[in-house]
């Protein structure tokens, strides 16, 4: 298969396969989550100020000072690469065009140079958190195969995307096809790994906060 056929494949069959598996996985996980079978809470809610789903969504996004001091790299690096990913994935004109072609939704984009900058910062921050994970004995002990797999699945689309736009390592067409392929792999594995937090993060924080607020606990 030459590079043009490869690119056409990832833009057609590959994308269809990846999105089909993604939809399958998301439906599966959504069903699973919604049918966990929590018992209805019959107790009268003990609401108090500062305790609600929204409060928890905000509060858990701000690091506790003692925890921050113990592991600043996780927080700073983590925040930087998440914001970077948000910019690179959702504010690059080409990506917006893709989302528009699938969903019909579109919004303004940022200049390519800014996206380049965000991509470099994202890659650097991701490498930093990886080194931190490997070099700290406790973090290394707690890390599983899935943690590393999730890192690779996230890192590769950003790396290949950057290499493609900068014409590094491989011809643009091949690198672009690889970039799309990596993004498709990410889509395929996203519902089945911890990467599903892309969709569940805010819902679960709200749920925890809401449940706790009914018990009158601000967390």
């Amino acid at each position: 298969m030459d590079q043009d056929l490869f690119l056409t494949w990832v833009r057609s069959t590959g994308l269809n396969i990846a999105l089909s598996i993604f939809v399958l996985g998301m439906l599966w996980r959504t069903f699973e989550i919604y049918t966990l079978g929590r018992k209805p809470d019959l107790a009268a809610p003990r609401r108090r100020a500062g305790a609600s789903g929204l409060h928890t969504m905000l509060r858990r996004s701000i690091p506790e000072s003692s925890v921050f001091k113990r592991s600043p790299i996780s927080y700073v690096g983590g925040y930087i690469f998440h914001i970077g990913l948000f910019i690179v994935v959702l504010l690059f004109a080409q990506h917006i065009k893709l989302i528009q072609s699938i969903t019909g939704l579109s919004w303004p984009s940022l200049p390519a140079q800014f996206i380049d900058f965000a991509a470099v910062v994202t890659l650097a921050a991701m490498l930093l958190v990886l080194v931190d994970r490997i070099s700290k004995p406790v973090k290394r002990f707690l890390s599983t195969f899935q943690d590393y797999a999730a890192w690779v699945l996230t890192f590769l689309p950003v790396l290949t995307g950057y290499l493609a736009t900068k014409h590094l390592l491989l011809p643009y067409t091949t690198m672009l096809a690889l970039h799309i392929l990596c993004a498709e792999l990410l889509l395929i594995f996203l519902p089945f790994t911890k990467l599903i937090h892309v969709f569940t993060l805010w819902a679960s924080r709200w749920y925890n906060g809401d449940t706790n607020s009914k018990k009158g606990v601000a967390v």
Partner: protein
Amino acid sequence: MNEHDTLGERLAQQGISRRAFLKFCAAIASMMALPPGAATAIAETLVKTTRPSAIWLSFQECTGCTESLTRSDTPTLENMIFNMISLDYHETLQAASGYGAEKSREDAMKKFYGKYLLLVDGSIPLRDGGVYSTVAGRTNLDVLQEVAKGAAAIIAVGTCSSFGGIPEAKPNPTGAVPVSDIIKDKPIINVSGCPPIPVVITGVLAHYLTFGKLPALDDLGRPKSFYGESIHDRCYRRPFYDQGKFAKTFDDEGARNGWCLFELGCKGPITHNACATTKWNGGTSFPIESGHGCLGCSEPHFWDGGSFYAPLSTPTSPLNLATEAVVAGAAVGAAVTIANRMKKNTAKSEHQTATVADLEK
């Protein structure tokens, strides 16, 4: 007039001045990215060169390549092609027809065996014994194999002969293949494009005649000096791409301001050709300059790469999400739910209450 006199004599006969010729050589040298001194070398060599015999074979093609080469209003660099070579066989351009035409080809092949250049436009059908395209009762495959045997080098003119082109597009009913799929033992240079830029052919010929070998080629057999960079990298609208300024339709404000045509399906980023630098129609413009995105016509399989108007970052065809996936997703979800519930119920039924006394045992 001797058909195979030197190029210098030929130019003199046509009243082309030495100055005009030197200008031509300088242009060719710079376009081929050769060192400055090369222009003189080209001029000196070309003047003394006996014009080689060239046989042009047309297979499954639309004659667009020939049209592109010959249809210029004023004498241009492209016309030099016909001064540099002695075109002994070209079905569209020759006066002879029938047996006479075939004889002129056979004569040239005999007389210049091992020395003539073979130019091919059009792809070669292989299915059903190659019956889908025949000339004088012979299949294209048959003629190509015969003529290629005595050729010094083969120039595949256009995307069809270089990569299969439109005849090779899905479902490829004739089993069309490019020249390089059939001929393996001759130097082949692919001058792709639909049609290719005339000056690229002139440049390749000048290079071949001057240095006696083909120029440096890329991995698809195309001369690097013309196909080394993408349309996108040489596009004058590139700054708009970088700034994120895109025309959304062909007649919106962005289009009128000359913004980037990426969102209208421009394939410039994956297309390697010299359109953005050499331009067309005597340097007038090239497709993007006329307000239309690049189709990617100099790349293999460009016809099957999805809509010309779909941006490169979007699906080539409407998404075809497998309904099975949706059904399967729901089914697996339901199955997992049942399994989870059963697990929970089992745990509940097996639950044993412990008293403080039990714990203190």
